[in-house]
């Protein structure tokens, strides 16, 4: 069964007809040619497909496209403005926070979403004082970024990049 949906992807309004079994990730990658979000596991276990969905980080392989009619999707490609990298992207470049690059767009969307969550005062598993705004130390960054696997093992550089971008 197909359904017509409209998405705003990286600022562009796109209307398309999708198989109702199609995930948001596959709609982006295979139907719309938006390949910045990556497919690493298709089970929400690796985070490579992370995008900002209506402003919040989400694994786009775990949601059907048809369930996201009228949604706003921002990928790592859309974070860069006028060819200028987003501060988080610049920090990943400066700290070599990646090697193969396949988890990277997801890491970056996840970091951008995560920094907003911290700004909004959301606690994490390692936040000790739930009454105070969380302080973004390395332990908080590591915990909050653990939904994004990196097999090249760039975590130490990813933490440095995010710490730098947060400053």
């Amino acid at each position: 069964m197909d359904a017509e949906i409209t998405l705003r992807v990286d600022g562009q309004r796109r209307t398309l007809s999708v198989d109702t079994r199609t995930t948001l990730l596959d709609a982006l990658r295979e139907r719309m040619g938006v390949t910045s979000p990556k497919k690493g596991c298709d089970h929400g276990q690796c985070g490579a497909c992370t995008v900002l969905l209506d402003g919040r980080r989400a694994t786009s392989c775990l949601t059907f496209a048809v369930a996201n009619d009228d949604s706003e999707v921002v990928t790592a490609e859309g974070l860069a403005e006028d060819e200028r990298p987003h501060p988080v992207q610049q920090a990943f470049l400066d700290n070599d926070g990646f090697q193969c690059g396949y988890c990277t767009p997801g890491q970056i969307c996840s970091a951008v979403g995560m920094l907003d969550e911290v700004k909004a005062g959301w606690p994490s598993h390692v936040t000790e004082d739930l009454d105070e705004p969380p302080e973004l130390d390395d332990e908080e960054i590591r915990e909050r970024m653990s939904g994004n696997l990196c097999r090249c093992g760039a975590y130490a550089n990813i933490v440095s990049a995010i710490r730098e971008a947060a400053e």
Partner: protein
Amino acid sequence: MTDVSNSGKLGEPLERLDGPAKVTGTARYAFEQPVDDPLYLHPLQADIARGRVVRIDTSPAEALSGVHTVLTHENAESLSSRVDVELAVLQSPEIGYRGQVIGAVVADTQEIAAHAAGLVEVTYERHPHDTVFRSDDEIVYTPDGSNPMIGEDLDRGDVDEALAAAEYAVDATYTTPAEYNNPMEPHATIAVWESAELTLYDSNQGSYTVRDMIAPTLGMDPQRVHVFAPHVGGGFGSKGVPHAHVMLAALAARKLEGRPVKCALSRRQMFSLVGYRPPTRQRVRLGADSAGRLTATEHSALEQTARVKEYAEQSASAARNMYVSANRRITNELAVLDVPVPTWMRAPGEAGGMYALETAMDEMALTCGVDPVEFRVRNEPERAPESGLPFSSRNLVSCLRQGAEMFGWNDRDPEPGVRRENGWLSGTGVAAATFPSFSIPGSKATIGYEPGGYYRVEIGAVDLGTGSRTALSQIAAEALEVPVEAVRLHLGSTEQPRASIAGGSSGTASWGSTIVQAAREFRAEHGAEPAEGAETTAEAAANPAAGEYAMNAYGAQFAEVAVNADSGEIRVPRMLGVFAAGRIVNARTARSQFLGGMTMGLSMALHEHGVLDGRFGHVVNHDLAGYHVAGNADVGSVEVSWLDEHDPHVNPMGIKGIGEIGIVGVAAAIGNAARHATGIRVRELPLTPEKFLI
């Protein structure tokens, strides 16, 4: 902020040239190459571990709208070569392991293909299978040699006599489990068949390797097979040779000529179709004299292999040359089972073998009452023990000494189990690392001078994320004596001159030597101010020093661990690796290579364990939820350092490979630190909590 230098001088931390494309996600990997009107292929896999397909009913699948074909052994074309059983897909109904490819659905969309795959009905004739790794005589044999061309077992002196006479002795058995490469980009290929030419957009570690293996299997002139791997999302060995899915896509594309066929394996399919590090069981016996000098070394390794195709991991090979020992016995055996085919995984042989040897070295140091750093220093050989050749350079002692200084090792209290704070026991450990400095001859590079004043450098190499695109540009710039901005490097396909595989940490050395040679010949032919259009293609000469020196990189791994006294949870707050790996081409990307290897080593030490169910022959935890690889919160401080090493013999640049040595020794350093923390010696990877609750 890290300093960014764009002078391109060798050693400087030039920013990754593909960095901007990677942080935006605009770097296109194999499955993302734009093709018109593609079809999608979904592999069908055997549900039994051994037997044969007696009936495969594809009609319900073929009846589904949008399905173009269902390939099976009944309708697949007969292949020209069946030498490689992984590539000789669908040639018979026989099943040699669970997960083996028995067919493929090709449809208009991924959703339809996956749906149709579930409609195919397979009837099997089941044969008894054997999938449990063990040392029983009936499944154990000695291979003719082991990866990558290591010869027969070694037996020098009289190990048994030396052990009997030794002042101190250690006899211990270590086990490592099946570990899965799991690059973040799943193995994927797009096959396009047009006018009797096959084009593959493929995720691999060498486009020429793929062409060389696929062309004869299909009975094709290799010139008619074009392979492109512009960006590769990691491989760690599993993309070293093409696997079954590449053949499936090629066969489907040939059958359905006109439409490209896309195939990306799922994470689960990867656990049976693209290889893994085989489980090992290793016995190490060491003897030492009263001065703490080794007199006997025995390393007997047993690894798993597949009945359908032999892979002989070389777990015991590092012990051939690591330390002094007048008496030495090295044996390697395989246990053959009805299991998926193992393959290379980052530092095959050394990663598992040095876990055993370096844990045994720690045990022996404690037995002798000598500090583990000092014990290794005392057993440093002057020449390579097996061949008697001098080392081209060997700076293990300096790595150990410098690491000990940086890590604060020298103030260490050797007493185990006494540092306890808030319920956590802490300790520190050390291990040595080594990896051979391989160079593969036969690569070619072309250099041309282009309008606009830049140098076009072409070589069919590949960048898996290692940074070779950037490092080779720096090497070309230095060899041509121009700024790196004046170099435009093209790699990643068979459209460029032939290049060797990205494997065995040989890439930068092999391809870099080729580029240096091409630059020299270009300058000799065209001078310092070449005319536009000037072009030279060259092949690097074989290294004249090969066979005259033993060539290896070395390193020292230090780890601090904390083990929870109540739960057994083990954490690694701090690691330090100090390496002696020749000249470093790019300080930024090299650091990431070492860091990545060490992080994967931590993952190997603490988490990774493919659990095979002997009743059914499948890996139970076959995804990234069940098979845990280190996540961000698992990793603490990781410090990387290296010596300024000048090796005049390895190659014209003086560089050694660095992609693998970072993982070597890490698991031993962590295990040794856990012993120091708790007093408990665990000899079985991974170091999971229950092993510390005794």
